[in-house]
């Protein structure tokens, strides 16, 4: 129990340094990456590429097995593509394109908060709470394909 928590803390710490080193904590760089038809800054592609290059083999070796400290890994990942995924990812995309900040970098930026990032993170948590408060009935959409 205790070791699992220490592992989570250390992984969070390394994750934050990775975001900082890569440039993901600089919104101007992120918007430059999203600017395909302007001065496209393709370098941030290597952030996702590098992370997936490590994650993918670990996933294929470890899936269905017991984790080293606690619990079993799942055997597969969700495959369903539905309207909810499309709508949610689109809403997120608009916010991401506007601010140049996604959830991870938002939290890391709290390490030296500015008014702008503090307000952004507060609003982001507010948006998450809003989602939680939305009655389930209202956000259950028919699956587009299954």
């Amino acid at each position, binding site marked *: 129990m205790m070791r699992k928590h220490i592992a989570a803390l250390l992984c969070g710490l390394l994750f934050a340094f*990775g975001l900082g080193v890569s440039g993901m*904590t600089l919104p101007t760089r992120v918007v430059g990456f*999203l600017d395909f038809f302007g001065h496209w*800054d393709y370098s941030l592609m290597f952030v996702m590429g*590098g992370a997936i290059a490590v994650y993918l083999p670990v996933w294929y070796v470890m899936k269905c097995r017991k984790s080293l400290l606690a619990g079993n890994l799942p055997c597969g990942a969700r495959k369903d593509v539905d309207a909810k995924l499309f709508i949610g*990812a689109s809403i997120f995309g608009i916010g*991401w*394109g*506007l601010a140049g900040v996604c959830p991870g970098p938002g*939290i890391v930026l709290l390490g030296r908060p500015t008014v702008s990032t503090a307000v952004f993170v507060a609003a982001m948590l507010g948006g998450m709470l809003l989602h939680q408060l939305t009655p389930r009935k209202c956000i259950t959409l028919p699956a587009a394909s299954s």
Partner: protein
Amino acid sequence: MDWDRVWPALVGGLMIGVASAGLLALTAKTAGISGILGGILEREKGEIGWKSMFVLGLIAGGVGLAIFMPEQLATESLRPLPLMIVAGLLVGYGTRFGGGCTSGHGVCGIGRMSKRSIFGTITFIAVGALTVIVARILEGA
């Protein structure tokens, strides 16, 4: 190739990969930041402990970056405050509605070759790119 930007991006990406894959191999958990934050807010049973520790690590990392690599943390605001509030609300609501963000879908999901996450990631990058274009037109630049 602009190696001055590509190398740090790649090294940072590898660090994120080790952190995410490490969390998976050690604890069987998914390093999706929106899911972690949402789980804490929703007081998910048995998940709050490790999720809080992960967030604590993220913030501690931010403090470390402020000390050792201060130039890597944004100081300027990309948009006026009211727009930052709108953007924050959209990011928070959208990531929960769509079940993931850049880390959960973009790294962990694609790292599992999940069709769902590949579709989600293409969607938020495409809509993000569209938003950048629209914002530029509205700014009249």
